[in-house]
């Protein structure tokens, strides 16, 4: 069961910590392979270059919402550092570090978008490319291959 695939996007660092939330995108010889992980099983969806009709993208405010959530949780955890209690200090440090890192990671990853891939019979959302930076770099690789396959 071995075949050569090249990774395009792995769905982000934070999502890799949550089993069941991860989607990854790989490039095959004549198709894109979307891997959707659901806790103990991963499903493979193949989109052949010859069948892809269009890829659409629009900006989404999700990264601002995520930034607000992570920022709020980091501040909330930082409140645990105020009382000079070893237990609250330990938990406060751990949670502030975790939510703070998530906040910074979200900011560094950049703006989010909604990406859909359209074929003659389906329109599928492409979660691994839903950061503008990932989408741009992914398109640089994918678009020429699709155009070549379709003449």
């Amino acid at each position, binding site marked *: 069961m071995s*075949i050569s695939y090249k990774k395009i996007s792995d769905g982000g660092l934070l999502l890799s910590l949550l089993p069941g939330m991860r989607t990854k995108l790989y490039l095959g010889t004549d198709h894109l392979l979307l891997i959707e992980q659901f806790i103990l099983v991963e499903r493979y969806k193949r989109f052949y270059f*010859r069948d892809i*009709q269009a890829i659409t993208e629009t900006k989404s405010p999700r990264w601002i919402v995520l930034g607000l959530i992570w920022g709020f949780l980091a501040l909330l955890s930082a409140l645990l550092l105020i009382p000079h209690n070893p237990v609250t200090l330990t938990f406060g440090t751990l949670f502030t570090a975790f939510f703070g890192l998530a906040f910074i990671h979200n900011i560094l990853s950049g703006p989010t978008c909604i990406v859909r891939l359209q074929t003659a019979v389906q329109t599928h959302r492409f979660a691994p490319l839903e950061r503008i930076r990932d989408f741009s770099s992914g398109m640089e690789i994918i678009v020429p291959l699709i155009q070549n396959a379709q003449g």
Partner: protein
Amino acid sequence: MVAFLSCPHCSQRLPVDRFVSGQPAPCPACNRQVAAYVFPAFDRDNSSRPEIHLAQEGEAVCFFHSRYGAVSPCDNCGRFLCETCLITVGSRKLCADCVSHARRQKDQTGLVNHAALFDNVALLLVTLPLVTVVFAFLTILSAPVSLFLALFYWSRQWSLLPRSRLRFVIASFLAVLLIAGWALLIYYLVTNSEQFTHTL
């Protein structure tokens, strides 16, 4: 059937002529800027069916349809196939029987559509009972199973793409610790059974 483009946000139809590949244009319904890459397959007429021609005298016919002319042999079994019976799997051309057989055997990479994540299973078997605390006693069974899974699938490729063995390493380590812990506890209980019965 004419294809149409839809907005990724509101799913409304978009006028295709407004979109030059990659250049954003506003969606008429939600007014969001949408970038669309449109490929030649978009203009392809998908309603057209494969052309099936009736076999002329002396011409090879399809194994399944004796009236239709064959266009290609099956790459696996060699049966002659018409346009209708020909199934393309990756770079191979197969008949329905061989596709069905390959799906059962899972020997065609192009037909694998799911895989169980045995590394996650092994890890969950040792961590989940411990996390729940109440069900920690279940590790007497789950730890050996986890260790077996880690050893059995260590060198086998069970998913389409190779995965890191880190989860197997953590699962094996925890499983060995738990098995050793249970062994010590059972040994202690057995060697001190007389003392226990005496106490009771």
